[in-house]
């Protein structure tokens, strides 16, 4: 009869949803709520006491020149990286849906960079930008490879864009390939017979039909770039002169190096609001353009 309570509804509820809910509550919900509280205090992370300071942290965050700069950098990086990574990924997907040999091997190669974590990726490219490019530069005498790629504000921005594209394109390509395969052949053939050029077919048939994939890929690329941290830490450490410091890196430095936890949580909360807003708007906008085949 001991079985009876074990099979009761409330017991099942606890057994099935309990473990995940407890972990989620402790690790995500509790810190999230605490963060909102701490962002209104002058907590330094060590002391047990934290006094209430109202909106001071938010005011300080919004007038912090370095935070503003990191925000601008992140927006710029996101805008450039989202577009270029998606264009590259889409081109790769188009190439790999043509009747060519070695498709499997090519897909493997394009995807491979993605399985390497951001931190190691950044270190690998640090070597390539510093030593590899120099070697190519002295062999070919091309000016492009003789630039101090990680030593200059302009070029280090593009260095990060290149690494982001290299690692992200393969992932998005896989999603675009899956979408392209599902575009009905008859539609394309019928349009071709009616005299539509390849570009016209792409614009008016293929792209509208793969809009769901576009939504997903934009969403993914957007959140990757906006939260960029590992790659930047290992590639440029935010330098030179903090010019490549992302918002995520700025928050990290504020809290764990400057020990201003209250200010850090305020920045983190602003960061959360922006990320949540952008991703929601972006998904809504692109969803509206999806059409049925």
């Amino acid at each position, binding site marked *: 009869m001991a079985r009876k309570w074990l099979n009761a509804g409330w017991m099942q509820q606890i057994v099935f949803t309990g473990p995940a809910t407890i972990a989620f509550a402790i690790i995500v919900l509790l810190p999230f709520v605490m963060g909102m509280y701490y962002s209104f205090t002058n907590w330094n992370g060590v002391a047990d006491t934290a006094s209430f300071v109202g909106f001071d942290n938010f005011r300080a965050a919004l007038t912090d020149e370095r935070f503003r700069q990191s925000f601008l950098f992140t927006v710029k990086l996101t805008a450039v990286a989202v577009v270029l990574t998606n264009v590259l990924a889409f081109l790769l997907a188009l190439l790999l849906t043509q009747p060519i040999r070695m498709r499997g091997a090519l897909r493997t190669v394009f995807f491979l960079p993605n399985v390497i974590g951001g931190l190691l990726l950044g270190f690998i490219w640090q070597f390539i930008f510093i030593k590899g490019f120099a070697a190519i530069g002295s062999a070919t005498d091309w000016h492009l490879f003789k630039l101090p790629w990680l030593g200059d504000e302009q070029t280090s921005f593009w260095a990060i864009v290149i690494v982001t594209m290299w690692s992200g394109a393969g992932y998005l390509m*896989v999603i675009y390939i899956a979408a392209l395969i599902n575009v009905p052949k008859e539609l394309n053939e019928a349009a071709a017979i009616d005299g539509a050029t390849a570009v016209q077919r792409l614009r008016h048939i293929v792209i509208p039909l793969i809009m769901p994939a576009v939504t997903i890929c934009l969403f993914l690329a957007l959140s990757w770039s906006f939260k960029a941290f590992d790659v930047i830490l290992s590639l440029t450490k935010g330098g030179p002169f903090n010019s490549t410091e992302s918002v995520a890196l700025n928050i990290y430095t504020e809290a764990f190096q400057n020990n201003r936890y209250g200010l850090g949580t305020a920045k983190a909360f602003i960061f959360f609001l922006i990320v949540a807003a952008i991703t929601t708007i972006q998904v809504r906008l692109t969803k509206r353009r999806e059409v049925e085949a």
Partner: protein
Amino acid sequence: MKTRTIRLRSLSVEAAAVLLALLFLVPFYFLLANSVKPYADILLDASSLPKSLHWDNYKKAFDVMNFMRAFRNSLIITATSIVGLALFGSMAAYRMVRKPSMYNNLLFTLFVAAMVIPFQSIMIPLMKVGSWFHLVNSIPGIWLCYIGFGSSLTIFLYHGFVKSIPAEIEEAAVVDGCSPYGVFWRIVFPLLKPMTMTIIILNSLWIWNDFLLPQLMLGRPSLRTIPLSTFSFFGQYTKQWDLALAALVMGVLPIVVFFLFLQKHIIEGITAGSVKG
């Protein structure tokens, strides 16, 4: 005539694709070629092929970064976390689908909504929570963190999949005297296998490569994972490229091998995971 132009066209498409692939592989060439060169040769010309294979770099880097220990830590953390996520995630999603009470619906909404929270926006108070619950510097502690952070996407993906399983099968099992837990474990969980594969793959790529959470939670050197020991290695041996590159090759090797062996599943998993996500 027509077939010839088509063949010519596909040949040029092929050439373009191969060229792009080579371009994608250039970083790997630099990495591998220079990892077996003595330091002086790297400085001399980083683009040349190595004159001889200088394995010493690997031997030294292997010892300095304590590779086996880092590998073991990464493996333990990743493996236990994905098992926990698959098990707890599928159980929670199953209950939420089959008993859509108001409480469960609210819970599901919370899990899904939390997907937009970036890690950096809660990491600071998380450290405080970590010290309260003694999660810092402990493998079970970081395990709990991965269960908490991973459960949102895991439950979301399982939720969509459980909905597609007809409840009649379970009802038949109940009639035959199977307990609710038996129904889940013997009937539902095996049916979830395709989604379990996806979930294992997505989570293992993420957890294996994760840097920031272990960096915050695991300060003790004996608990370092591969990304952490690579990071501290770079801190100590700045610009010691001969050792650093060997360390990087060893660091990326396990995940690259994992990918090459399971690539069919990985690519399918990513497609399935992102279409739903």
